[in-house]
């Protein structure tokens, strides 16, 4: 079974600082990888996803993530955060070649951006 580890529980950054949130998964086969974001009071939204191809994936709002297969990692990055990026971020994985396997999520990382 797949599992996802997000090592940072709460990250506090100043505006314009660079962001990197760690995500590691455990699964030996092909995987699909996702980052979701939950802004305060809102529902979960997809930030970006990786299925195949270029391991550097660009998402909405200036976010990107890099799939490093050898490290089983899919870290989320943003060069310069804004106050509006304050939210909870979830990494998720599902087995890429298994029919109808559900998404397995990490425990989430809460990002607080301060002025």
């Amino acid at each position, binding site marked *: 079974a797949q599992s996802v580890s*997000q090592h940072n529980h709460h990250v506090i950054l100043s505006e314009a600082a660079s962001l990197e949130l760690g995500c590691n998964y455990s699964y030996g086969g092909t995987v699909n990888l996702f980052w979701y974001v939950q802004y305060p009071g809102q*529902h979960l939204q997809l930030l970006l996803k990786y299925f195949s191809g270029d391991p550097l994936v660009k998402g909405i709002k200036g976010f990107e993530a890099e799939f490093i297969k050898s490290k089983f990692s899919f870290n989320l990055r943003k060069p310069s955060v804004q106050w509006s990026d304050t939210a909870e971020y979830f990494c998720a994985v599902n087995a890429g070649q298994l029919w109808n396997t559900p*998404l397995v999520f990490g425990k989430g990382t809460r990002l607080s951006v301060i002025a």
Partner: protein
Amino acid sequence: SQTIHQWPATLVQPVGSPLSLECTVEGTSNPNLYWYRQAAGRGLQLLFYSVGIGQISSEVPQNLSASRPQDRQFILSSKKLLLSDSGFYLCAWSPLSGTVNFEAFFGQGTRLTVV
């Protein structure tokens, strides 16, 4: 376009009372349906998923059950709520396989407080 409806948004129930949370999806056929529970610091825990009417897979044995009486309807139930059932419950859907590369779309969630 597809939409997902989940209700109620908030619910306060006494210990020992029954529970019924409903989720419906519009604009798609044969979706995969999921119930997740989100607890602070614990991420999203997959509770149940369904690939078709009457087909329910349970991920975590507990006081809850799920049913799928219609193609686009997914219900989360309990006969007798426990205090530990308090949490934020999220319904989600994803396209049925035909493509294994999918993403999950989430509803607004139900905040359940058992008192």
